[in-house]
């Protein structure tokens, strides 16, 4: 894990290289509880093998009650998986999956700033995680859609019922998703983009 010097760093090769014509990058964030399928969704849509980035953040005010194994440490490292989709020869979209511990998501400076929006990935067996996330996104003014990952063993709940259980505003889209499927995950991102399009102000004339 240590940085061993520049000669040992293996960067992207071949098809993983972005053309020099790419001038613009945008990002979306996939949020959801541990094991809900965030990394699966990122892998499904990404043109590159998902990468892992990390950030070091202080624990002050984080509410850590049991800093097991990190005694005398004042900060911790949070890792996050992300993938990439080339939209055109000028534009590229990055999809970030938030780390497992919810308390870190909103401490990561710059994760949500500048994001187009977010996908809240929901596991019907653990709705309580989604409440917290949705509340935080609303506080921050981050537009989001809700995607229900269809685990075979999870109870199948009609989307209408989930909407009221999650207390979603009527305009927020809620869709079913199979995070393992490229098409289904792509369609979930499309739902977010169409929603954002509706929210966006029409271009100024002149």
């Amino acid at each position, binding site marked *: *894990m240590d*940085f061993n010097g*520049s000669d040992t*760093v293996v*960067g*992207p090769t071949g098809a993983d*290289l*972005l*053309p*020099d014509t*790419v*001038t*613009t*990058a*945008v*990002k979306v964030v996939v949020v959801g509880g541990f*094991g809900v399928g965030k990394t699966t969704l990122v892998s499904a849509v990404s043109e590159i093998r998902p*990468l*892992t*980035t*990390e*950030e*070091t953040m202080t624990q002050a005010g984080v509410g850590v009650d049991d800093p097991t194994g*990190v005694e005398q*440490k004042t*900060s*911790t*490292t*949070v*890792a996050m998986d*992300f993938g990439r*989709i*080339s*939209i*055109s020869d000028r*534009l*590229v979209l*990055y999809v970030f*999956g938030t*780390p*497992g*511990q919810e308390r*870190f998501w909103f401490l990561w*400076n*710059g*994760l949500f*700033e*500048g*994001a*187009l929006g977010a996908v809240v990935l929901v596991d019907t067996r653990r709705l309580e995680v989604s409440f917290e996330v949705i509340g935080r996104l609303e506080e921050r*003014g981050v537009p989001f859609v809700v995607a229900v990952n269809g685990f075979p063993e999870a109870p199948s709940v009609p989307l209408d019922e989930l909407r009221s259980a999650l207390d979603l505003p009527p305009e927020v889209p809620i869709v079913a998703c199979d995070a393992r499927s*490229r098409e289904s995950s*792509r369609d979930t*991102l*499309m739902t977010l*983009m169409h929603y*954002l*399009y509706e929210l*966006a*102000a029409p271009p100024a004339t002149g």
Partner: protein
Amino acid sequence: MTAEQGGWDGPEPDRLYVITRGRSGPSGPGVFDLVTLIVSLDEPTPAHQPEHAAILRLCRSPLSVAEVSAYLELPVSVVTVLLADLLDDGLIEARSAAVPAAELPDRALLEAVIHGLQRL
């Protein structure tokens, strides 16, 4: 490396301190977003710190800050300190993220993304 759990699985803090010569990253969104694209403008020389040289090699093709962090296995806040050095020295170009923080994306950008996703 697993993505779901935190903890000290990265370089030790002392080492990170040395790499940045004690400087810490910006506390909020600064010049570099996670998806700011970095492109090298020059080749590394033996005089460069190894981490700076590694970035210059990695970014011969455009790479996002997040990708640089991933390939170097260094935290984003450390990478942005290193990138700021290179930017100051005119060795890299930073292609800024499309959507400034606290602003909504415009429809033309969203249309482009929608068209791109349709082809996926």
